[in-house]
């Protein structure tokens, strides 16, 4: 994995270099994306399949311990989990009132456990490594005609298009504001969509000109 990191191009998108990834050197940072996603899947099944207060608490504790061992910055992790904490508290309280404390605890904790675990996986895995793993994982689909390298190219094209489309959206909004039409979606969304199609057209043309479709 370290070898690939050295040769693969970094892919800085528009917000921070690598999505919601936080650089670090914990054991979780070193585990490959495949095992981490698989682990998350197992946890997800366990949370849904196993019921009872004791297992719910145990799974939550294991997840919190894992999160702590990843040594992620407390602030951004809290910010990522906070909305779901509020949902969990609201729904948990509602369930305690409607169906008793056991159900309330389980519903609330399960929610937090899964979201926290997934947040930890995302924060310890570079987005481009995860996408590389996805492209590799789809390799067997070559037999049914889906070529993984086309997916890899589509990901690149999409990431390239986002900053341009964001700028278009801003320009279109400013143009609409200049004409006093910023509340009219026909003056904002429609031109943005038309320009997105135009952009796709010229991108398709550029790909053809560069022999990508040959």
């Amino acid at each position: 994995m370290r070898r690939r990191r050295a040769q693969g191009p970094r892919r800085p998108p528009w917000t921070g270099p690598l999505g919601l990834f936080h650089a670090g050197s914990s054991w979780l940072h070193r585990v490959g994306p495949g095992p981490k996603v698989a682990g998350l899947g197992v946890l997800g099944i366990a949370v849904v399949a196993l019921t009872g207060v004791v297992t719910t608490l145990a799974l939550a504790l294991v997840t919190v311990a894992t999160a702590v061992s990843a040594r992620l910055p407390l602030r951004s992790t809290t910010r990522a989990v906070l909305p779901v904490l509020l949902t969990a508290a609201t729904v948990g309280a509602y369930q305690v009132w409607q169906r008793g404390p056991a159900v309330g605890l389980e519903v609330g904790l399960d929610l937090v456990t899964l979201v926290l675990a997934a947040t930890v996986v995302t924060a310890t895995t570079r987005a481009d490594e995860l996408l590389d793993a996805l492209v590799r994982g789809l390799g067997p689909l070559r037999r049914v005609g889906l070529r993984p390298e086309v997916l890899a190219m589509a990901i690149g094209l999409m990431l390239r298009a986002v900053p341009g489309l964001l700028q278009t959206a801003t320009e279109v909004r400013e143009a609409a504001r200049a004409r006093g039409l910023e509340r009219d979606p026909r003056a904002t969304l429609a031109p943005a969509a038309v320009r997105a199609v135009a952009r796709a057209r010229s991108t398709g043309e550029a790909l053809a000109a560069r022999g990508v479709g040959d």
Partner: protein
Amino acid sequence: MIELEQAGVTAYAPAQPEERGSGGHEQVVTLLHPTTCTLAERRIAVIGANGSGKSTLARLINGLALPSSGRVLVDGADTATDGAAVRRRVGFVFTDPDAQLVMPTPVEDVALSLRRLGLDRAARTARARQVLARFGLAERAELPVSALSGGQKQLLALAGVLATEPAVLVCDEPTTLLDLRWRRVVDDLLDGLPQQVLLVTHDLEAAARADRVLVVDQAQVVHDGDPEQAVALYRDLMASGATTG
């Protein structure tokens, strides 16, 4: 060598709003009347008004536009039936580098061009870095393309096309969107290339430096040959206001 044999291009124009119902027919317009010529000079310029058909002429040469009548050959390969071979020989540079650059970072974009050489990913990336270094873009290899200046983007677009060393380079107004400083950088770069270059341009100074100049007006080649006469004719056309666009 580029050969056009009675190559003409027609297209549908979008129907007028009132005709656009279930019974409306679209109009067929001529983008380029059948044209015959053999282009073998090292530096060829194409000038003409906006909408005159000069971009269509340029697009014919790497198969980006296909002739509706006649045919176009590049070193014997037909653009309609052997497009892949044609595009291996002919590189194309667009006016707007934002349209041309399709990948998020310079190194990925150049590596995309190198795919056709059959290298693996690591070799492509290494080769792309070499190409970027040659064009003075080594330090920007991993920045987002959207963070480059317009001139840097056009330089990168040229790097991406030249990375595969095509025999012919077709440039569709490559300097129109650039400031004077970058215009000179791109002009000098094009002048110094060993390849055959077909340059579509509004820059009459650049056109005057070519070996041969084609003037396109109202979908027709109205002059073909001496640069000085071509530029004089083009000035007359512009002054008389009798042109399209």
